[in-house]
């Protein structure tokens, strides 16, 4: 199990940041990802692995209007 934006989310082998974003349906382009507090740049999403127990923050910046 991992934490994503303070909520539990099931973890599985081979989960990268990009896989997680796809699972969550996070398609907004204007987001910031941090894994255990460490910033992950967009170009690294496909290869940055997520481990069981990680705390992930996917910050969607305010938009609209």
């Amino acid at each position, binding site marked *: 199990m991992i934490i994503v934006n303070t909520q539990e989310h099931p973890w599985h082998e081979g989960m990268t940041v990009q896989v997680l974003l796809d699972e969550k*349906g996070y398609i907004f*382009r204007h987001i910031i990802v941090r894994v255990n507090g460490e*910033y992950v740049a967009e170009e690294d999403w496909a290869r940055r692995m997520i481990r069981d127990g990680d705390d992930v923050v*996917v*910050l969607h*910046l*305010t*938009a*609209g*209007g």
Partner: protein
Amino acid sequence: MGRILKSYNYEPGKIFRGYTGKSLYINVGDLRIEEKEVTQLMKDKFIGGKGFDLYYLWKAVKPETQWNDPENEIVMSCGPLGGITQYSGTGKTLVAAISPMTDIPVDSNAGGYFGPLLKFSGWDALELQGKAEQEIVVFIDGNKGLIQIETAEGLAEDSHILAEELTRKYAEDEKDMVNVSVVSAGSAARHILYGMLNFSFYDPRRKTVRFKQAARGGLGTILLDKKIKALVVRFKGINPNLNDVADIGLINKIGVKYHKEMRDLDEKQNGMRKIGTANTILVMNKYDLLPTRNFQTGGDPEAVKISPQVFIENFLTQGIHDGCWYGCTMSCAKTADHFKLLTGPYKGECVTVDGPEYECVAGLGSNLGVFDPQAILEENFYCDTYGIDLISFATCIAFIMECYQRGQISQEDMGGLDLRFGNHEAVLELMHQMSRGEGFGPMAGLGIRKLKKVFAEKFGADPQLLQDIGMESKGLEYSEYCHKESLAQQGGFALTNKGPQHDEAWLIFMDMVNNQIPSFEEKAEALHYYPMFRTWFGLMGLCKLPWNDIVPADNHLTDIPARVPEHVQNYVDIFNGVTGMQIDKAELIRQSERVYNFQRVFNLRMGSGLRQHDKPPYRSMGPVSREEYESRQDLYDKQLREKQGLDPEKMNLDEKIAVTRKYREQQFELLTDAVYKRRGWTKQGVPTLEHLAELGMDLPEVVEVVKQYL
């Protein structure tokens, strides 16, 4: 050619540090024209823009003033930063009046050139009072120092023709057309309460007049009720320092950095330069936020048919710099050119459609069950040229459609129109009826609050159901986000001054997706900071979009990325660079708080502005119907288990709906308590005297009103 009823010559006020120091008063009833001094008190407490509008409006009206009384004013002002050309989004005009929809002050903003040209013509604000005897045009020539009131005979009704006629008439030649801006409504604004104002600017590449709108709250209805067919301003000689700013070097530097950011990052971020705000349609659909069929659900598989890509590939002209004021490199004001109309009085003509913006695609599209881009653009065009507030129209017609779907009203009640979800032919016919003042048009133009009464009294509809599904608060229709799962956004719409418009706070991601503000106190802090910050744009004459629809590449390293700290600092620096004052980020918020609290007290003065007036309909908070609950049953059942400790397996559907409702309504009350406390208001929503004193907003006339409620 109109007959001149009044001519007035003036010496244009010289602009110094963002202000001309003078405002213009025109009474169209007795043709009085007066110049007023902009006082230090006005600048200190009200700053400009919406602040000046509310200041003058307060003085003009009495507590019992109705929207169509002659003393009601339309006031416009563009603020001290309005018209600078070095930064993006600096050409907004703020407009205020007592609204026919809400009976309290409404403020709305528009791009286009009118506000800056008005200022460069010598006026920090314009007040229009009275009612003309016959239809008129008010013309201001800022170069000649001339104001003329003329009769309006022979002019077209609809804005796309009227503004073109007037631009040609008042420009000295073809090249001069860019120096003319027109404010007008349109034929439907005569017959409905949510008529809006078009603000024009001439596009020399397309050789056509384009529009931005001050759309909310019925301002166009008031303009025509005053028998003002149009306002026209002409000013030639735009240059980068007409505001005579205190530190032009600073402003240039900030502007250059910002424009580079825009050039390098827009493509990677929101793509504003390709499609504008409509870039978010599929995002909203994916996150269950795209209002569909009167906000019943937050998305639909058919939304792909109205995706940004569809509009970009098939309709929108690309590769042209599309700013609605000089210097805006965000340039999001896209158009569909050579668009062939299929219905209405202009059927067969090829026109330029300004838009579509997000609210248009969501409102006239998914919320009406219309997933046809051609139909949406046609609706967009007719809303604009007829002078119809697109958001109120969309939300109101979505309500009517659901009433029809649920058997609350019949086809006969709608004059034979088959207004079922998805029937865009009927939607367009309804617009044409509004334009002609025929059939069901004028009734549908009353807006949801009045229609609830009509449907219950005349057609026997269920008042409770109408109350639950009618998406209005304070009499104004909601803008286009399905926000049931964001408590903070429920507050962002209902705990507002003018009504549920997204220009106070848009907190859905922060609340519902990021879970950044879980406690009531954190939500309340966001419902303090963001509305105040957004109010500031209205004081300055600024467009909100360049603030956070693009962010610096290193924004993620900042302490609160959602606030885009570097851009907030840009605004502080630009304000100081223009005015020569020295404010900081905290004072920026205080400037807004003063005006925000003044507006709250203004609502009180007009008999509104209390807790009871801040209530949302239940559709804003949760699932009204069985189908709505069932559409997200897993989520709602989970919430019953986790938030209320209940076992959904042991409950039937109606019980689940009822306990969900009770819980959510309680949550909203707790949120209201927290927000009022944070804003320095009593439990009834009244600003306390201590808070007003601390803000320096304890003006005698303000205190006098507040005391009646303490």
